[in-house]
């Protein structure tokens, strides 16, 4: 049994089939990249796993328990953490308070939540920003803050939506370091990514979507040689 299993997940928006019969799995402690051209349905699949959408059909299981159709807060409680394409920091709070809000899922006492939050801030290398307003941090710092906030709920699986988009090469390296450290703690990562240079070297497996359908699934080296994937990215020769 895998940590996360998608069984024939489809999501329809009116006449548009955003995901069609998508099945794949994520093992515990694995980094899985979910890639594909624009409009492939990556974020939709992602939102189905995180509870922001209910699949039109199919089933999603986390640790053997069905989570498809549950609201986001229940998915979070079940062990799914996530970040968004934009950081969505709580701007009325400091960096530490942002992470504390996450830690409070399991630690309701403010004092304990603060200790936990400081630990996660240090984990993503933001400890010196602890008492700075979240809104005053750079995009790259806020991305890592969002990761710390999601980790603070102590998830089994972390979903990251384009965490490397728009970052410069130094910032991408920092983020890669964070992702590898997360895996080292035994937390699985499912990463939607456009920046293939960032994801290809670190992913254990790559799942490729195109027009809502899964077209490839395997180790990065295999996937990048797959004619169907090349065709999807570059167009048919």
């Amino acid at each position, binding site marked *: 049994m895998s940590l996360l299993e998608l069984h024939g997940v489809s999501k329809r928006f009116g006449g548009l089939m955003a995901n069609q019969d998508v099945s794949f799995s994520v093992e515990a402690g694995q980094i899985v990249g979910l890639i594909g051209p624009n409009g492939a349905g990556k974020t939709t699949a992602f939102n189905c796993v995180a509870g922001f959408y209910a699949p039109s059909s199919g089933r999603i299981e986390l640790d053997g328990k069905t989570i498809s159709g549950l609201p986001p807060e229940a998915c979070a409680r079940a062990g799914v953490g*996530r970040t968004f394409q934009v950081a*969505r920091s709580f701007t009325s709070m400091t960096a530490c308070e942002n992470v504390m*809000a996450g830690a409070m899922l399991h630690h309701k006492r403010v004092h304990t939540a603060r200790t936990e939050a400081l630990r996660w801030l240090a984990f993503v290398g933001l400890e010196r920003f602890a008492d700075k307003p979240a809104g005053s941090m750079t995009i790259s710092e806020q991305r890592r803050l969002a990761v710390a906030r*999601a980790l603070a709920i102590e998830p089994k699986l972390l979903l990251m939506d384009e965490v490397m988009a728009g970052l410069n090469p130094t910032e991408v390296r920092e983020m890669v370091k964070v992702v590898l450290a997360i895996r080292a703690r035994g937390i699985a990562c499912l990463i939607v990514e456009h920046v293939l240079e960032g994801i290809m070297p670190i992913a254990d497996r790559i799942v490729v979507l195109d027009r809502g359908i899964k077209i490839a699934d395997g180790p990065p080296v295999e996937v990048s040689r797959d004619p169907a994937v090349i065709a999807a990215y570059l167009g048919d020769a």
Partner: protein
Amino acid sequence: MMKRTILFAALLALLVALPLVSSNPAHLNLAILVLMAAQLGVAWNLLGGYAGQVSLGHAAFYGVGAYTSTLLLLNFGVNPWLGMLAGGVVAAGLSFGFGWSCFRLKGHYFAMATIAVVEIVQIVFTNWEYAGAAVGLTIPMAQRGWGAMVFADKQPYYLLALGLLLLTLAATWAVERSHLGYYLRAIKDEPDAARSIGIPIARYKQIALALSAFFTALGGSLYAQKELYIDPGSVLTTALSIKMALVSILGGVGTLFGPVVGAVVLTTIEELTRAAFGGSGRGTDTMIYAGLIVVIAVYYPSGLVGWWHERVRRSKNKRAALATDAEAAA
């Protein structure tokens, strides 16, 4: 921290002693009005400020508080202290219906739905014979003293209003310090991100609403005991709801003392225009309100308290910069 505590204690002592110092009933009355407006603002702020759900229907809870304690007193001889508590509990209970219907909407649409609620409640009470209909209810002055919460002079009402404000501030302070305060601010800032970290936002908005309704209703009961007369036109109007929102917005939403500052400024303007132009100020207070709202929205969206914090921060930075300059020069 120590300095702050001493300052706070001194301020509190001054406030308690105020009625002994000033014997002018007009001054005392203004002070009572300020305290009551501040208490309502602080109660409103729990939902509108911290959770960011701007309600323009809070007069419904105020009216329910005033009517519950008064009806219990007139029909069943229930002590007003108990009646006040009952009013708070009834308002908190009714807030579940209020939340169930209005929280389906967001932002401006939520605010508009809350106006509809208070209008409906007003129509119900205007036509409800048992509750005195449009004529209203009068509390007899036969029994006086602390037990009956009816007094011939103003001082005790001042202390009551001050006590209620402190109680509401203490509750808000406790909320701010607990996980509830963090969750409410998270919901206000980024509702989707709040859900993604496991916050059931519907439940927490409702908790904030129920608390806010409870304290608003206590204010309503106090009003009834002070004026000894209530009718739908005095305790169930949208203008009253707007005032609760306004003192918070002027002073600073989502801050502990913002509504208190806002209440001092707004109530003083209201009473000064009343004194200057007679009657209800011939609407001049409303014109000044409107002007103030525009000024706040354009220049100080975080309210007076926010503006003050910004000033303090800037002067600190300036001083720090000066100090480094001096060091560099030396």
